[in-house]
């Protein structure tokens, strides 16, 4: 085993530990702030895996958009609502919910894992210049250039639609969270 291969294994397994540890942290932490920090750990692990798979642009976007924007949004909401007190995880509203959920999750992973292992040799790596990498192309921005050509060429209509989606999402959120003066007065009187 060469040094480079050994290094790739070290990177893969340490990032895998980060991902799974963070994910388990998200679902077991009592405090939502700690769960959000577990989510950050998972997202960074996924970014490391993206780098290992030569998807450099996606790794950068993963860190900026997910770990930057989305987790900060989560933390903002946690702080804004003051729901950062610990929750009692021993309460189980539906009696057999947890064993049932565990059986479902394990079954899901088992089935998908079995399918992956069985299909291991079904897909061959296609030859040719499918994905440009920095080592092959000689430039450091080969991945970004190829992704941009694909995004603004083949998928330009879908790209335009995402801007519509974002506008709709922002407008909808402003409408949802706005305090309407008359409405607010109604709820105040009905709550009192």
């Amino acid at each position: 085993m060469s040094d480079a291969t050994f290094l790739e294994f070290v990177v893969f397994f340490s990032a895998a530990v980060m991902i799974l540890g963070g994910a388990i942290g998200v679902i077991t932490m009592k405090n939502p702030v700690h769960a959000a920090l577990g989510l950050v750990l998972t997202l960074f692990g996924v970014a490391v895996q993206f780098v290992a798979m030569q998807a450099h642009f996606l790794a950068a976007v993963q860190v900026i958009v997910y770990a930057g924007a989305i987790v900060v949004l989560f933390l903002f909401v946690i702080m804004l609502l003051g729901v950062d007190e610990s929750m009692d995880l021993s309460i189980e509203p539906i009696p057999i919910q947890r064993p049932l959920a565990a059986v479902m999750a394990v079954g899901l992973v088992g089935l998908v894992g079995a399918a992956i292992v069985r299909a291991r040799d079904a897909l061959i790596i296609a030859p040719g210049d499918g994905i440009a990498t920095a080592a092959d192309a000689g430039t450091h921005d080969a991945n970004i250039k190829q992704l941009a050509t694909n995004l603004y060429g083949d998928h330009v209509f879908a790209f335009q639609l995402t801007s519509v989606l974002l506008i709709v999402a922002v407008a909808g959120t402003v409408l949802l969270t706005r305090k309407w003066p008359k409405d607010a007065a109604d709820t105040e009187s009905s709550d009192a």
Partner: protein
Amino acid sequence: MIAVIEPTWYLLLAAMLFGIGAFGLMVRRNPLIMFMCVELMLNAANLTFVAMATRLNDINGQTAVFFVLVVAAAEVVVGLGILVSILRRRPGATADDLAELKG
């Protein structure tokens, strides 16, 4: 240059991540944590997309991840907006209390 580690490993890792996210979504009652679990599942899908893009040598998989990112951002914005407006009226509401939305 193709990564030395087989894409199968990445797919298995993504399957485990998806399973953890699905378990958390079914078990946790705090709506915020449930959103985080949805994010975990979306990340598992992203990992699968990039692994298959590497395996099939096709850049379209990486473009798909880009779109997933945009949709995830929009989903979080709308979801947290709904959550803020609910929790403003009923502090400490859990997912079970949201049945009050009906009728």
